């Protein structure tokens, strides 16, 4: 493996950013625990917890996994593929609500 001078410089300056991102993720995780003890319904709690988890995940993917430093087309491909599958998976919710309303006696 060849280490370029730019690579060297980037690695030297990277610790501060890593620690900053680490602290941000820890704060977001702590916020999730605060939200968990609030008096909210399961649905409201989900709406508050999921964005925090997604923010944590974005920070981890882009800074810990260095996705921000990859080629633009690779970033677009990863994000597009992930969103496509996640959105496609949502088709099952209607059936879940149907089971809830028919009390296990669905035909």
């Amino acid at each position, binding site marked *: 493996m060849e280490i370029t001078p730019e690579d060297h410089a980037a690695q030297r300056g990277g610790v501060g950013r890593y620690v900053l991102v680490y602290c941000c993720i*820890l704060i977001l995780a702590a916020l999730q625990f605060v*939200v*968990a003890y609030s008096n909210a319904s399961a649905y409201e709690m989900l709406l508050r*917890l999921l964005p925090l*988890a997604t923010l944590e995940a974005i920070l981890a*993917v882009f800074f810990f*996994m260095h996705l921000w430093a990859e*080629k633009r*087309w690779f970033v677009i491909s990863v994000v597009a593929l992930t969103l496509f599958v996640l959105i496609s998976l949502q088709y099952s919710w209607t059936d*879940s609500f149907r089971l809830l309303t028919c009390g296990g006696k669905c035909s």
Partner: protein
Amino acid sequence: MSGGNAVISQQPGEVIEPSPFALPSKKLAIWLFIIADGMTFAAVLLAYGFLRNASTTWPRPFHSSINVGLMTFILITSSLMMLLAVRAARLGNKTAAIGWTLLTAGAGVVFAILHIREWLGLVREGMTPWRNPWGDPVFGATFYGVTGLHLLHVTGGILVLIGVALAYKNGRYTADHIETAGLYWHFVDLVWMYVVPLIYLMNLSH
């Protein structure tokens, strides 16, 4: 090679194609694995959400969040350690790279011990994959299924980190291998970021 047209190698008749997305093959392979594995976890967590939503007797069995909070802290901190390992390897500091990699694996071991201790506590209270004393029996199956799949990934990650650190020490592996193992470890951390709110925090009794 950073992309562009195919080039002729020094071997007669052999053509090397440019690397897709200008990524080294190891890195591209681990990214493809991560994307595929991420979809597996997405499907498993969605199935969990489906069952939770469809159940009227879903239990909230967790009395405290201290253990899961500690596990979260350990896993996020291990990701920082892994970053330091990759950085040290890139800078050619072999001793530090091996040290940080093994420390990351050590943090993984502590995480696994805490996880198994929690499981044993729940089993003692009567919750198994087939039985749940507090309500819907499916809860046990989904809880052990999701957290078990994650623990399997943590265990695999620990073995990979130890193997890569030893091979790097012997000179068989390079900094690229440390980085590839690191990407996998960060992914394990990333999955936990969704497991905690969905499986633990939404099932806290208060």
